[in-house]
């Protein structure tokens, strides 16, 4: 099979689907007898599928980016035909061939559009009206300042009344403050406030957790007040945490970090409207870590560009912050053979020292990606604990359900884990055992360890 086609599996196709119904529908479509003119080459996959309309739908998919197009009227993206076509390919029912005209046109169209986008981005940008822009920016600063003041007064009020008193408050007590902060154009603060309501009812030691989160809000407010005195990286971090975004166009104009990047972990999460995909990378030459974030609203698909273990040459641009973590792919070059091991791991003592050093750089740091190992997994009714070679123990996050799976995988031995450390708990994302790499995946609600092939 060709290289890009190899990167596909049923699991990845399911990840790409907007919902479970689409997967089911796609399975119905993924039958060779429903298709004509099936074919693929190294980069693209195509075929015509008989539907309810008079003409068959023309379906094409670009393999590397998973971008697809179909002439069917479905509003789901990607539609069942695109998914079905990919399933056929995974089932090895699509022969190699050269693309027909409609595919060729689409490829050329895409190349043109991509070029246009790049030239738009790289063209010297002259703001249409610098004065208006400055006015807007000033207005936002003023609004945020108002929001910060409200939040500070609100926090102080809670401390005056006592946590015990606000615990009895309804959910709206927290959500109203969060919406005021959204209105004040400080979405980062709004997110922090929304998360407080959950902590207030989080069981034993809730006071401690709620107080810590409120204290961190205060720290952020104080940092924002003194932003002019902070080093530039930390200042950018503070602005990001308050809720300013860094425009990707201007970031893309910068010089990036070129390296061979190894994908260590991958995770999707969802809040009310937004689905977020995190992909963690490490540079094979530089040893740096990077986090790529993708967002999708509603039924929009998340790009299925990366797979755990994959290695590719690329130029990455870091967002401003301290320490640098979030990044963008500026240019992607060729892929290299996948690596099914995790990079050098730290033990618990190194994990703690390393995190302390990072806190010194940025006291607002919430979590940091790291490879921990080798560790033994201990599971009991109270949760999962990881034990390193020296016998030091760290707990994993409370909503972790893969404990028994890891214990079984290790078979009484040890594993290495890639995950996020927040100073108190470890949140595993992927695991390595004896040269085999596993992602901590789910089938519906069912936690599974899926070996990366």
């Amino acid at each position, binding site marked *: 099979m060709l290289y890009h086609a190899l990167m596909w599996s049923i699991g990845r196709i399911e990840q790409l689907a907007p919902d479970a119904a689409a997967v089911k529908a796609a399975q119905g479509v993924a039958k060779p007898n429903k298709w004509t003119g099936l074919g693929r080459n190294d980069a693209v996959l195509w075929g015509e599928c008989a539907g309810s309309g008079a003409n068959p739908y023309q379906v094409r998919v670009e393999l590397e980016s998973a971008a697809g197009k179909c002439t069917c009227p479905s509003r789901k993206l990607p539609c069942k035909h695109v998914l079905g076509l990919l399933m056929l390919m995974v089932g090895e029912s699509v022969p190699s061939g050269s693309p027909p005209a409609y595919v060729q046109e689409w490829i050329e169209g895409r190349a043109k559009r991509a070029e246009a986008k790049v030239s738009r981005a790289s063209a010297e940008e002259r703001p249409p009206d610098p004065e208006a822009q400055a006015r807007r920016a000033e207005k936002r600063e003023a609004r945020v300042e108002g929001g910060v003041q409200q939040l500070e007064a609100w926090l102080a009020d809670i401390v005056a009344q006592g946590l015990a008193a606000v615990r009895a408050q309804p959910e709206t007590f927290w959500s109203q403050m969060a919406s005021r902060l959204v209105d004040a154009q400080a979405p980062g603060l709004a997110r922090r406030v929304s998360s407080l309501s959950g902590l207030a009812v989080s069981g034993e030691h809730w006071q401690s957790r709620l*107080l810590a989160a409120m204290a961190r809000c205060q720290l952020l407010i104080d940092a924002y007040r003194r932003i002019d005195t902070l080093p530039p990286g930390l200042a950018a971090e503070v602005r990001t945490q308050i809720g300013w975004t860094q425009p990707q166009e201007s970031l893309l104009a910068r010089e990036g970090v070129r390296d061979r990047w190894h994908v260590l972990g991958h995770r999707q999460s969802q809040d009310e409207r937004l689905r977020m995909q995190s992909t963690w990378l490490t540079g094979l030459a530089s040893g740096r870590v990077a986090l790529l974030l993708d967002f999708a609203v509603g039924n929009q698909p998340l790009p299925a560009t990366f797979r755990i273990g994959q290695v590719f040459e690329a130029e990455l641009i870091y967002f401003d912050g301290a320490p640098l973590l979030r990044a963008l792919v500026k240019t992607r070059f060729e892929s290299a053979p996948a690596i099914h091991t995790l990079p050098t791991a730290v033990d618990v*003592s190194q994990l703690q020292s390393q995190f302390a050093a990072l806190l010194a750089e940025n006291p607002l740091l919430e979590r940091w990606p790291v490879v921990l190992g080798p560790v033994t997994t201990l599971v009991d009714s109270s949760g999962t604990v990881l034990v390193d070679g020296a016998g030091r123990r760290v707990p994993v996050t409370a909503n972790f359900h893969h404990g028994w799976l890891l214990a079984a*995988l290790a078979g009484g031995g040890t594993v290495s884990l890639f995950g996020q450390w927040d100073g108190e708990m470890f949140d595993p994302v992927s695991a390595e055992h004896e040269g085999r790499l596993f992602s901590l995946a789910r089938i519906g609600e069912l936690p599974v360890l899926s070996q990366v092939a």
Partner: protein
Amino acid sequence: MSGDHWSTITTAVTLGTQRGAPELGQVWPSSELSAPADQSAERALLRAAAANYLWQLAGVRFAPQNPPAIVPAPSTESRQVSEIAAWRLAKMLSGDHRELVSEWFSLAARAGSVLPLHWLPVALNGLHPGERASAAAVLGIRAQWLAQQNPAWAEMAVSTVGLPIDRWHNGTLPERRAALATMRAAEPAGALTLLQQSWQTEPPDVRAAFLETLLSSPGLSDGDEAFLEAALSDKRKDVRLAAVECLCRLPRSAHALRNIDRLRPLLVLTDVEKGLLSRFKKRQVEITLPESLDEQAARDGIQAKPAAQQRIGERAYWLMQMVAMAPPAHWCERFQCDIDAFLKAVLATDYATDLILALSQASVRHAAREWIATLSMELLQWYGQSERAFLASQMLPTLISAVPAAEQDAIMQRLFGACDPHQFQLLESVLVATDVEWSAETTRLAFALLEKRIQPDRNQYTYPRQLLERWGLRAQTETAQREILRLIERAGEPSPWKNALESLQSLLEFRLVMKQELLT
């Protein structure tokens, strides 16, 4: 978070500064740190909390503890199920074609594969307790290791670990029954002695359950007769009936001989007449109904009254029960005839229906294979007849499931060959009764039958989709896959048949892929 300062602050903030604030100078983690004097108590507390929080987060180091003692999992040489096959199992366990889970395990066992360690928890959590034993070969010894780590899976280990004798003495009822079956297979007489030791003290339900175990497991022999004969006097009816079932199957037992003696004057096949016209005269069955039921007959398990819904006289009912206990071979021996001749004579009597059912029951009890083959063809004829169709649909599955799997298929082939489309509907129950995969030939015949049925039913949707899906669970996948394409084409465009056939097709495809994943 811990520490004196932290708890001082937490307490103060929980109660609220309106109720009093702590000494603000005393709550900072280090004397070098303190808040400016001009701030409010609330802000000062929050800032001190932040400082303490970071102080601890950055400063605390976990102390080493004794490393945990975990026994390493036993290593295995067995071939492992592929990742993609295991992934499919997990999806099945979470609801996608859940009914095929047992087939998945039997295919994996056939391939001699075991489940990789990291999939074991998924299987142990997802399997029903009853399925675990049959999956044991694929779960492997490492599942027992895992069960020792997690109490929730402990029952996994209990049912297979230890000696049967220990489980017999200490186990739950299902475990004791399993232990009894194991011991009977190894040493029938020894197991019987064990059973007799505790027999008097077992509760009645348990006694009946153990007799059922004797019946269903290998090892039943004349050596058990004395014990069973004694059980005929048990206080509990369930126990007595279970003992009768066992004794029925011992043709040399006193119980069986008493039954034959009772039958001798009641059912007689006339002799072959000598002379010129003999070839035109058929042998006939002459029936005399028993006059009364004596005490011994009642003790031997002949019920006095038929169930309310059974349309049969009392005396005829007694006779049928006796026929149903006697080994069918008895008739051929006694009257020097073959099965067909005897059945022909039986069918000519007024009691044809009841006698055929009684003989069927006897054939099931004595696993009389030739009789089952012949009787099932007779029962097939009942399918077109409204009043007997129901009786046949109940008896035929029982008959077929009484012979070994390989012979079931042969019987079904004969049935399918002889069946015409209007008998089709009731034949379905037979298909569903067997739990083995059909042979290629049976599958082909079944689909040929289905094809005939589709033609007249073009506009009528009488076969529920589930029923075809149950076909799909038994059919030999490769053959069925070929047949179904032709059928779908035949079904015509806007037909409900087509929908049902397509969903049957996707089930077959699922099974086919599952098989490929496990066997190649």
